[in-house]
């Protein structure tokens, strides 16, 4: 083992000497740069990504660094959640919904010089849907039966069944276009077509991106020359870094209880936007007594969502009545289907055969919102005679093993980060163990049509079923707590998909 301390010491010494020589030069550079408008950005994130390839791993932090900055998709999702053209400039869907013909942009190159054309697009999608694919959203591509590239600008997808969400899914970080020659190394040195190029990754500290001078999309004016993503996991340290000016922006500040501490700060501004993070307390729908709908409904009515949001997230957050957020298309406010009413809840529980309540255990991950929500819920359940024990469960490792895969739990609480994922209640197996053929039918219908208003109607019906059935206790949507320098313009205030899109970010003079 000692072997490794020796080269490192030498390394350090060399770096020291190098650094001393360099620092004088950097100092002078810094002085001249201070005159012009700022073109660098230090952006803080709570979680460091695990690898930089969003097509082979699920953590949202990967997309939050790379999506729309390094990597782009055939289509993109804009700040309002709409699907917009990107590397595909247009597309046509056959009337039977089984053939998608994309017209691709021309003159697009990857950062290493590879050409982006229909062959690269075909390669990307084949890699994502192939036998040894490790794409975290492989199911997105399940209906693609074959892919044609008749010429360099045309990509044709043949589907086995109509898939109404396919275009939306193609806008996700896990569907971005990768280069045939570079994809194997994207985890450590990502190569995309985006407005920024990967520069360096000091593991455990920061990732540097620099402007891509050859960016294909001349209609956007990218102002930033250099962006540093800094990873700070401790909320106090995040606040300190913001106040000391070490980071210019924290688009997703981790501690709602510290948001007030920025009030009156001359330099910083706070923005409270929306996200897709749905905090829900899932129940094991095949385990007694949660297999009885009346019990689940009683538990839902025992909860005052407003107080939970107050206790867990300093009152910042929006109550929800099903697994759907106000920014999703076709949203219905269903928080009054089973409104807070402890007396009614107690009566319903008695009807279900539990006049004296019962005892169960909630497995809570360590993320701040979970234990805090659970403590408030515990007090509210006690009011209707139900005893809830709280069992901390390490996330992700133990939670995934016990709750998600093992489905050995009564109740749990977790924030679902994936946008538009109401279909999880139709998946089998899934940790809720919820089985409702009528609901599954609706989810199928959504995919069978490409008509948006038709889809929204079905989404509405699906929400109503969940609000009535409560396979999980629907609590609240997390806010996006943004803190950044007042002079910084162009950061997204809302988050229809977890991201930090920097294309239009600039400093005011």
């Amino acid at each position, binding site marked *: *083992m*000692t072997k*490794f*301390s020796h*080269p*490192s*010491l030498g*390394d*350090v010494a060399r*770096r*020291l000497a*190098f*650094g*001393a020589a*360099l*620092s004088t030069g*950097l100092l002078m550079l810094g002085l001249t740069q201070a005159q012009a408008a700022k073109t660098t950005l230090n952006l803080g994130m709570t979680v*460091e990504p*695990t*690898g930089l390839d969003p097509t082979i*791993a*699920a*953590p949202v932090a990967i997309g939050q660094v790379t999506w729309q900055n390094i990597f782009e998709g055939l289509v993109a999702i804009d700040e309002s959640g709409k699907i917009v053209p990107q590397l595909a400039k247009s597309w046509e869907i056959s009337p039977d919904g089984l053939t998608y013909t994309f017209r691709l942009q021309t003159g697009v190159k990857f950062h290493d010089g590879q050409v982006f054309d229909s062959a690269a697009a075909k390669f990307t999608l084949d890699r994502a849907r192939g*036998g*040894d*694919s*490790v*794409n*975290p*959203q*492989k*199911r997105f591509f399940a209906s693609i039966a074959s892919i044609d590239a008749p010429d360099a600008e045309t990509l044709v997808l043949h589907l086995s069944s109509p898939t109404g969400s396919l275009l939306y899914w193609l806008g996700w970080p896990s569907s971005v276009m990768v280069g045939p020659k570079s994809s194997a190394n994207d*985890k*450590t040195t990502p190569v995309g077509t985006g407005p920024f190029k990967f520069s360096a990754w*000091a*593991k*455990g*500290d920061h990732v540097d991106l620099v402007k891509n001078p050859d960016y294909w999309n001349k209609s956007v004016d990218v102002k930033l020359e250099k962006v540093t993503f*800094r990873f*700070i996991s*401790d909320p*106090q*340290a995040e606040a*300190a*870094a913001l*106040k*000391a*000016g*070490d980071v210019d922006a924290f688009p997703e500040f981790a501690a709602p209880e510290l948001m007030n501490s920025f009030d009156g700060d001359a330099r910083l501004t706070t923005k409270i936007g929306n996200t897709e993070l749905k905090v829900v307390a899932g129940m094991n729908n095949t385990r007694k007594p949660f297999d009885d709908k009346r019990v689940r409904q009683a538990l839902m009515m025992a909860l005052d969502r407003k107080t939970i949001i107050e206790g867990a997230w300093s009152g910042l957050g929006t109550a929800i009545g099903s697994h759907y957020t106000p920014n999703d298309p076709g949203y219905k406010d269903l928080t009054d289907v089973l409104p807070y009413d402890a007396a009614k809840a107690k009566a319903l529980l008695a009807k279900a055969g539990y006049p004296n309540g019962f005892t169960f255990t909630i497995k809570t991950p360590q993320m701040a919102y979970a234990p805090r929500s659970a403590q408030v819920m515990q007090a509210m359940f006690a009011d209707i005679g139900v005893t809830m024990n709280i069992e901390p469960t*390490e996330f*992700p*490792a*133990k939670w*995934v*093993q*016990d709750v*998600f*895969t093992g489905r050995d739990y009564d109740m749990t609480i977790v924030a*679902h980060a*994936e946008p538009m994922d109401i279909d999880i209640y139709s998946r089998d197996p899934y940790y809720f163990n919820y089985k409702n053929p009528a609901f599954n039918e609706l989810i199928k219908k959504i995919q069978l049509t490409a008509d948006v208003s038709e889809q929204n109607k079905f989404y509405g019906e699906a929400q109503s079923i969940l609000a009535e059935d409560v396979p999980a206790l629907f609590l609240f949507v997390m806010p996006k707590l943004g803190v950044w320098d007042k002079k910084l313009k162009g950061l997204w205030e809302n988050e229809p998909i977890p991201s930090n899109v920097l294309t239009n970010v600039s400093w005011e003079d």
Partner: protein
Amino acid sequence: MPTGGPKPPAVEVHEAGTIGHGHAMIVLLTRRIFGLILTLLAVSLLIFAVMALLPGDPAAITLGTSATPETLAALRHEMGLDQPLIIRYGQWLAGALTGDLGKSYTYGVPVAGLIVERLAVTLPLAILAILLSVLIAVPLGVAAAARRGGFFDIVAALFSQMGIAVPGFWVGLLLVLLFATSLGWMPAGGFPGWGSGMWPALKSLVLPAVALALPQAAVLTRVTRSAVLDTLHEDFARTATAKGLSRSRVLWGHVVPNALVPVLTILGLQFTFLVAGAVLIENVFTLPGLGRLAYQALSQRDIIVLQDVVLFFAGLVIVVNFLVDLSYLAIDPRLRAGGAR
């Protein structure tokens, strides 16, 4: 003997000339090195067993909640997790012996490089903290012992009480509040890398080094004080005083060098603690050190990184203890004769 630290190994005093000192030393060293290798092997098996028992599947963590069974199987195969445990242990050990510690699941880069990168933060930080701690503790401890109940003794008592009672990470938070948030003299955390220059890099280590050093210095002050007090009452010290040597010559020339054994023991322990145990401070200052690497690897079940880092820590403790033992021999000539238990 001083009472502050552990006693040096029992000594068999040989008549001069029965065994050559050099030969005895070689026997002693060989035995120690052999023991060291056996310990490392046992530790590696223990580490691997614990990692195998740890709940959580790295593939499931990587692929998240939408993964299909086929993608999970594909990734487990890619990670080599579908192989039997005994083969994985053998591969790890064989790799480690040839300097190949494997590739991190999460970062996708060789672990050896990761450890070296992190050492470029952790080692300078530990050395800075140890230096600071010695610079504070040894003079203060000696001054306190020199005049019991005097001004320095009271200062030392106060300092060590507070230093032990107050946790280092809290001191760190206060330092950040004062020097980074209010005064803006120092960065609030993070590490710019040695490539950004000597001063920016060092600057980011100053506050964490102080936060790390204060509790260590508190302990060291106590140890120094009691070691010096004990030695002051030994016969040779009284003799030196009786012979008419000045107080300061007795103290610095005779007492302090003889009081160093327990101080060194504590220093050795503290150094390994500073390298392996600075996780909290590294989190407060968001420093990319070894402790934080281990912590992140644990939460991501990056088992390869975790078992390598833990083995590194274990190896470090074992090797530093070995070196401390050797340094007893250097300080105390009595231990050199014979030496074997």
